[in-house]
């Protein structure tokens, strides 16, 4: 199997991965658009106004939102794993989601709903919290030229604990309606989101995706080691800064809208690795596609599993992702830097 995969050139493997994952994404998308509390009869879309409203006002924006958030979290996870050379790194384990959640809850608690020159303040605050967390964790885990994998994850866990405490404190002091708003959002939910939020997010997220795709070569080399990457012509400091900022935007914006949806950035890149190999130039674009499909599917489960009750999508991803994390820990011989 491995011999077979390796005998193909990387380009062929990339195109095969993109083709397969695109088909998967389209199938999952169609399924999620169709299924739900009420299934959609696609033929009735032209004639029945109720079906149209359901489809265009609720179902479609929700599926698109899941796709945007899933792609962003998965690609951020792939990038952070390479950057920190740690297979257990992802926005949630590194405390980046926690940082973003603190930033966003401050914005919600103060009722900063408006936008500064078109940028929603809640996005800016989410980004601010996320980048503070990622820099803090990076700083703590770095010892000289080495990144200590244990210290990295411990620092991430502690940053997350501090963040949850901060969010709790914010909820406690703010008035009850906003506290409820924070609570609903913090678990991670994709309900009641309109098209304008989708477009506004896309405006911020799409450039970040493109940037990470452009940096996938650097990420591939950084995954081999910082010094090796440097000796192969990578500007290590610049690449690190760019990846930090991009991942913070991705996580900050998605957390601000969808809450802290954990483990997408862990499961998805590893699934792509298992299917198509370790090359980051395949893992990054692959995670973008599979991340979308994964979160759409998780949201479909959240909507339909206990219908008419709706589970928070964050609970579904955590229930899948937690055991997956433990399984990765168990298989540590495959990943030596744990």
């Amino acid at each position, binding site marked *: 199997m*491995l011999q077979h995969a390796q005998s193909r050139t990387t380009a062929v493997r990339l195109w095969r991965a993109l083709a397969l994952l695109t088909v998967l994404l389209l199938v999952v998308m169609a399924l999620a658009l169709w299924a739900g509390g009420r299934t959609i009869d696609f033929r009735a879309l032209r004639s029945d106004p109720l079906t149209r409203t359901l489809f265009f006002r609720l179902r479609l924006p929700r599926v698109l939102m899941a796709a945007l958030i899933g792609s962003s979290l998965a690609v951020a996870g792939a990038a952070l794993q390479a950057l920190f050379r740690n297979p257990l790194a992802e926005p949630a384990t590194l405390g980046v989601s926690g940082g973003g959640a603190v930033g966003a809850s401050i914005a919600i608690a103060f009722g900063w709903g408006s936008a500064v020159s078109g940028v929603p303040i809640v996005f800016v605050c989410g980004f601010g919290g996320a980048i503070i967390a990622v820099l803090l964790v990076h700083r703590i885990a770095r010892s000289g030229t080495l990144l200590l994998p244990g210290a990295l994850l411990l620092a991430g866990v502690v940053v997350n604990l501090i963040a949850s405490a901060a969010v709790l404190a914010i909820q406690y002091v703010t008035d009850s309606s906003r506290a409820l708003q924070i609570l609903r959002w913090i678990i991670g939910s994709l309900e009641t989101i309109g098209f304008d939020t989708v477009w506004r997010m896309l405006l911020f997220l799409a450039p970040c995706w493109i940037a990470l795709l452009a940096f996938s070569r650097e990420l591939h080399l950084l995954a081999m080691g910082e010094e*090796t990457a440097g*000796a*192969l012509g990578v500007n290590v400091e610049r690449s690190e800064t760019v990846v930090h900022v991009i991942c913070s935007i991705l996580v900050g914006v998605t957390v601000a809208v969808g809450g802290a949806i954990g483990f997408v950035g862990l499961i998805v890149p590893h699934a792509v690795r298992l299917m198509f190999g370790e*090359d980051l130039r395949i893992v990054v674009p692959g995670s973008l596609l599979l991340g979308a499909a994964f979160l759409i599917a998780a949201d479909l489960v959240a909507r339909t599993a206990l219908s008419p009750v709706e589970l928070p999508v964050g609970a579904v991803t955590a229930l899948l992702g937690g055991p997956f994390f433990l399984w990765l820990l168990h298989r540590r011989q495959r990943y030596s830097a744990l």
Partner: protein
Amino acid sequence: MSLILEARAAEFSYAAGPPVIRRVSMGVSRGKLSAVIGPNGCGKSTLVRLFAGLLTPARGEILFDGAPLRSIPRREAAKRIAYVPQAYTLAFPFTVLEVVLTGRSPYTPRFRFEDERDRARALEALATVDAAHLAERRVTELSGGERQMVSVARALAQEPQCLVLDEPSAALDLKHRAALVRTLAALRDAQGLTAAVVTHDLHLIDPLFDHVFALRGGTLLAQGRPDEVLTDAVLAEVYEDPHVRTRRIDGRTLIWSN
């Protein structure tokens, strides 16, 4: 004899710490195999990182082919100088071929992948270090010694004019230590490759190496042909060990400490 790498009054310190390299001036000759020796913490690794362009001197200058190294774009420099770090572990189970192929990345445009020619070069580099049979294995499954050979193969795949190796033999057994040095000597003889090697294997230096740089406390204490530097007097001073003894037998220098 032309110098390929040169340090001119180079100084370096990490963050706000004391200087690790103090006004070192030295030159690595083209097509020669040079050893960098000295006690632990004397600045050997820092010195070769300066030569590899991974660090920039705080004062002074590192020159490649007479031009300041920092004036050469990084990817261009990576086509001329390759660096083999000390033994290290990889976080992800890349295949050996994937690792060696990264040596071709300075030659590969951003949105392209390595082509068949690059794969041929990578396999050739693996064969040079006698590791062609490992190509499809995962690096995380290899022994420390095998991993180090893969690292050297990656550096060779860069087709550099100059190799800089930081204790490449640290994880290797007796046979592979000697084999690695012989491989470097053979590449020098066949292709005119230049290599600067940080090493603690003093007994392997004579007669395969051409030149020895001896460092102590961040300064260059002695340099010259192996038979000039590997003497009781010089080594006693370099390692601050009066018990060091050397003996030349059959054109090689044996070294031990009583």
